């Protein structure tokens, strides 16, 4: 059945809108992008009564209908354009009962737009605890709309809200700002010209000249001409609009609110800020929290990651033994399943990381982080909100780049996206561990630290320094003029809503699996093809050669399996490519074998380890790390006889993996988020150049 009613959920930020949305819809929701812009919309289905369903859309929080960021533009666009696909029949306005004044200003705008509105007074329990009493009947009367008190976290008031929706509501008889009175522009003419519903809607269309996303060129032209003709200064009018509404709201609240100040609640809040926002201890605590998060991600996620790896190799085993031998069998076992495993193995880390971020956001701590970090980050072309994408980048750049959406400032957002892949993601970890194990002794330093561990830490530090260094350079060279403001609300501290945290973890993991998953699986299949096929006759020659060896030396073919596999890889398309790029990577100290691994790493960097195992003829499914290391260490240059994996080459290779953007999923997500090939290619090319130059210097400096 098609939903018969469209409801928009609107409110200020931090009013518990998402909690109410979750309470109304359950997990019956999906996240999608508004066409053309990268702001997520969350649409859900709500069953109001038997046989009565509705579509409900969760709008980004906004303080007014005068948008200043990409997020805020969404409610503006939807509510001021009657032809918009999500133009609602009804609005649920979510207000923080502790903070009524500011909330009601936006509400009066909605009432003036003549929408049927229900006011959901959320967090009513906290208001009571803070000594705020609200005269609900008086409020209903003064606003001319129904009011329902809710506590969305505890799902109190949800049924009452649904009941009001079912009964149906009319348009308020009240009008706050007479749009036609103060304004010099002929609104009535505009109203019919643009097919708008009322004069305030027309006025809002005239106001907006900073963020014009109107796709209709005609409409844009009409409005621009109008502003020009009347010399219309939107900023002044918008300010007057707000101040007038504040006056009206103050008059209503005088009779509605009864506040007793100085509660214990407030004292606790202030104490928390004294510590968490302290100019010295605040930073210590923040870095302490970061440390705990990293520890948790890497130790807690290890167990489920191993389980996922086991599951994939179990499935590979089943496929190999149960399906008839042939191309389909190999495609599944060597192409699709490893690709799938390469995706799923990162899910635990991503889920944990976004769980932590959701907790920090839900408790109100994230705003304090932005407060503490903003100035520091700005020196590097970033801002306080870039902290989260950068931290997320240590798990995976794909969700990290997506989380840059909350950054309003265009240039900072772009720079954040460009530099995030330099942070050492978890796919680099197995590569680092293998390579460090080759040349760094397992030795204690200063009694507590391990030399290998220190080297690994150095690689993470290198990634971080490269990210902020690149940010600094981009800040200087990118010519985007846009004034950067720092005005941010610090919401009250709250206990996290575990349901919201769980929903976020689920949604982010799902987005990662669908977004990065598609690319990784597709690339895995392509790479499988390149590694398993070759020009006609070449594989047959290898088979023939080993058949001969087997017969002459009286060795079973089975024991030669590893060598056959290695030689076939050398002769395959992937091997041909690896050899053809050898001249380009030889100055870095890499041979064609490493070339093959660099090519296959484009699916995901950790594929390096598996490829090395195949190249060195370790035929089994689960190659032994130590065995692989021994094989790699034995390998020598056929001409000079020098070790391939010398100290210089290994470090050169690690630096290469630290800087090169060998991850097609990241390329795809950057393209999606910037909607521009220019920035996508710039990111890829600049990281490639950086990787090559840095590796070249390392290789020559160390050898």
């Amino acid at each position: 059945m098609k939903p018969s009613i469209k409801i928009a959920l609107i409110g200020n930020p931090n009013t518990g809108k998402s909690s109410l949305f979750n309470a109304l819809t359950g997990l019956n929701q999906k996240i999608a992008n508004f066409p053309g812009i990268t702001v997520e919309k969350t649409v859900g289905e709500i069953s109001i009564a038997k046989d009565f369903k509705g579509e409900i859309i969760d709008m980004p929080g906004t303080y007014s209908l005068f948008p200043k960021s990409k997020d805020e533009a969404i409610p503006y666009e939807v509510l001021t354009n009657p032809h918009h696909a999500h133009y609602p029949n009804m609005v649920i306005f979510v207000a923080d009962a502790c903070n009524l004044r500011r909330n009601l200003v936006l509400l009066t705008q909605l009432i003036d737009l003549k929408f049927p509105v229900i006011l959901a007074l959320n967090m009513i329990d906290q208001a009571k605890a803070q000594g705020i009493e609200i005269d609900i009947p008086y409020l209903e009367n003064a606003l001319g709309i129904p009011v329902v008190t809710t506590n969305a976290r505890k799902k109190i008031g949800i049924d009452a809200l649904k009941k009001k929706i079912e009964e149906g509501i009319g348009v308020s008889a009240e009008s706050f700002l007479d749009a036609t009175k103060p304004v010099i522009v002929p609104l009535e003419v505009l109203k019919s010209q643009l097919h708008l519903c009322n004069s305030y809607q027309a006025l809002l269309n005239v106001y907006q000249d900073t963020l014009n996303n109107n796709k209709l060129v005609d409409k844009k032209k009409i409005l621009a001409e109008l502003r020009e003709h009347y010399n219309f200064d939107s900023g002044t009018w918008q300010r007057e609009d707000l101040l007038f509404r504040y006056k009206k709201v103050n008059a209503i609240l005088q009779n509605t609110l009864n506040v007793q100040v100085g509660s214990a609640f407030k004292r606790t809040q202030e104490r928390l800020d004294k510590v968490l926002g302290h100019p010295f201890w605040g930073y210590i605590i923040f870095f302490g929290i970061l440390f705990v998060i990293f520890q948790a991600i890497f130790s807690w996620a290890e167990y489920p990651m191993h389980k996922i790896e086991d599951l994939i190799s179990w499935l590979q085993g089943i496929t190999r033994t149960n399906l008839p031998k042939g191309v389909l069998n190999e495609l599944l076992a060597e192409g699709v399943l490893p690709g799938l495993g390469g995706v799923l193995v990162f899910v635990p880390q991503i889920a944990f990381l976004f769980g932590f971020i959701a907790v920090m956001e839900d408790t109100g701590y994230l705003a304090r982080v932005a407060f503490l970090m903003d100035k520091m980050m700005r020196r590097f072309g970033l801002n306080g909100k870039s902290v989260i994408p950068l931290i997320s980048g240590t798990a995976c750049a794909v969700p990290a780049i997506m989380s840059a959406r909350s950054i309003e400032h265009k240039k900072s957002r772009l720079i954040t996206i460009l530099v995030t892949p330099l942070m050492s993601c978890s796919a680099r970890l197995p590569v680092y561990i293998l390579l460090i194990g080759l040349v760094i002794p397992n030795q204690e330093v200063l009694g507590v630290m391990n030399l290998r561990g220190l080297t690994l830490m150095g690689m993470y530090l290198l990634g971080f320094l490269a990210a902020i260094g690149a940010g600094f350079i981009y800040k200087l060279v990118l010519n985007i003029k846009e004034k950067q403001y720092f005005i941010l609300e610090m919401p009250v501290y709250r206990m996290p809503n575990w349901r919201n945290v769980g929903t976020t973890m689920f949604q982010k993991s799902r987005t990662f699996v669908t977004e990065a998953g598609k690319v990784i699986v597709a690339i895995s299949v392509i790479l499988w093809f390149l590694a398993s096929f070759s020009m006609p006759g070449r594989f047959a020659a290898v088979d023939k050669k080993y058949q001969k060896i087997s017969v002459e030396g009286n060795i079973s073919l089975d024991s030669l399996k590893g060598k056959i596999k290695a030689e076939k890889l050398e002769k395959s398309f992937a091997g041909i490519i690896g050899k053809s790029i050898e001249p380009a990577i030889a100055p870095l100290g890499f041979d064609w074998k490493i070339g093959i691994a660099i090519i296959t790493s484009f699916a995901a960097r950790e594929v390096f380890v598996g490829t090395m195992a195949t190249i060195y003829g370790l035929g089994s499914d689960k190659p032994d790390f130590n065995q692989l290391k021994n094989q790699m260490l034995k390998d020598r240059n056929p001409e000079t006889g020098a070790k391939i994996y010398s100290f210089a080459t290994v470090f050169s290779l690690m630096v290469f993996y630290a800087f090169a953007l060998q991850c097609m999923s990241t390329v795809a997500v950057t393209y999606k988020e910037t909607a521009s090939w220019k920035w996508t290619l710039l990111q890829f090319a600049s990281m490639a150049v950086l990787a090559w130059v840095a590796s070249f210097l390392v290789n020559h400096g160390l050898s």
Partner: protein
Amino acid sequence: MEVAFENQIITLDTLKKGDAGVIEEITDPWASLKLIEMGCLPGGRFIIKMQAPFRDPIAIEIAGNLISIGRQEAKTIRVRKQIS
């Protein structure tokens, strides 16, 4: 208790943590609109609750909300300091 304010108008960035005052005017149009919709209006009384290193940003409590403001923005907010 009656509260008094100094006659001299200064900018918000010159005040320190713990100082209180009243907002007279916000000169930057963008910041003005943003602050007004967050509940930070001319005539509103505030107290500086937090300050990051180099007093950039600071956080003021006004109308029951805690709002952090960068130094650049604070320079455009004209205030009168409360006489303590």
